[in-house]
C-alpha cells in the first residue's frame, strides 16, 4: 500500500480511485470542416501524456478523418484526400491521462 495519494470509494465500498490509477481528463475537442487544416497550442499540456485523434462526423466509404499530430504543446490537424478518398467533417479530440 502506497502512503501517497488519494483512495476513494463509492457507497458500496468499491474503489473508484486508487493511488496507482491513470484516469483520464477531457482537455480539448473541436469540430473541423472537411477541407480545414490548422493548429492550436495548449500550453498547459506541457509534460503531460495525452491521446489525440480525429474521427469522422459523417459515414461514407472513402470519407477519412483528419490527421492529428502533437508536437510539444501544439496540436496540428490536416485534411487528407486522394484520388478515391477525401476528407470528412471530423472531430478533433484530446484527453490527458497523466
Amino acid at each position, binding site marked *: 500500500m*502506497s502512503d*501517497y*495519494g*488519494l483512495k*476513494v*470509494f*463509492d*457507497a458500496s465500498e468499491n474503489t*473508484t*480511485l486508487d*493511488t*496507482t*490509477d*491513470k*484516469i*483520464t*481528463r*477531457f*482537455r480539448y*475537442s473541436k469540430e473541423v470542416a472537411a477541407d480545414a487544416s490548422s493548429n492550436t497550442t495548449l500550453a*498547459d499540456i506541457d509534460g*503531460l*501524456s495525452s*491521446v489525440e*485523434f*480525429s*474521427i*469522422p*462526423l*459523417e*459515414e*461514407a*466509404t*472513402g470519407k*477519412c*478523418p483528419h*490527421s*492529428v499530430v502533437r508536437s510539444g504543446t501544439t496540436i496540428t490537424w490536416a485534411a*487528407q484526400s*486522394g*484520388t*478515391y*478518398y477525401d476528407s*470528412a467533417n471530423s*472531430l478533433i*479530440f484530446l*484527453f*490527458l*491521462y*497523466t
Partner: protein
Amino acid sequence: MSDYGLLVKNNSEEIQIDSTYRNLSLDESDTDTISNNNTDAGYYASIDIADSVLVPLILFQPNTDYFSMVSAYIKSGSNFASFNMATECDGSSSPSGPQTTSVNWRSYRQNRAASGDSYGLLVYNAAGELCFDSGKSYFKVYSVTNVSLSAPAKATFPSTDITHAGISNPFYILTPVSYYLNMYPLDATFTNMDAKMVGLKKLSSTSVRVGWSLFRRDRIQAQLTHNEGLNPAMKLIICDI
C-alpha cells in the same frame, strides 16, 4: 493551474484530478450486434447513445469471429447522438448475406449528471462543473501501444498481435480510423474495388489482433489496378474498466 479545488496525483506523481478539466466517467454501456451486408448503407451499424452536447469517448471489446472498428461519431443537431461501428463483409456479392458479430461498448463523457451518492467525494471546477464524482466509474489507461502495419494489397491483410498479460478482457480504443482501397482486375471484364479498414479481433482474454479487413467490395466493368489510402501510425489504448 487553478488555485481552486483539489489537485490529486497518483504515486507516480501523475495527475488524476485537477479541478480544471473534467474526468471522463462512464455514461452508458451495452452489447450490440453489428452486421455488414456489403452495401453503402449496410456496411456499418449505428448505435444510439444519450443525446448530449458532451463529446463521447467510445471504448469497445471486439469478438473472436470478425474484426470490428468504430468508424464515426454522429451528431443530431448540436448533440452527439450515436456512433457507428463496422465489421468485415464476406465480399462474395453486393449486397451479400450479412456477416454479423457482437461487441461490448462503453461510452465515457465528462460527467453528464451527478451520481447522486451522498457518500464519497465530489470535486467541482471554478465554473461549477463536476470534475470528479466518486459514485461514477472511471476507466484507467493500462497501456498505450503504437501500431504500424504494412499497407494492405490484393488478398493481403497485414496484422499484428498484441498481448497484455497483466489484464484480462479489457476494453480498447483504436485510433485513428484508417482506410485503404485496392483495385485489381478480377477477370478480363471486371475490376474489384476492395475497401479496407483496420480493426480489432479478440484472440484471447489477454491478447487482441490489430489488422486490416475488408468492409466493402464493389465490382466495376473496367480493367484497373490502383492502390491508395491512409495507413497511419495507430495507437491501441488498453483500458481497465
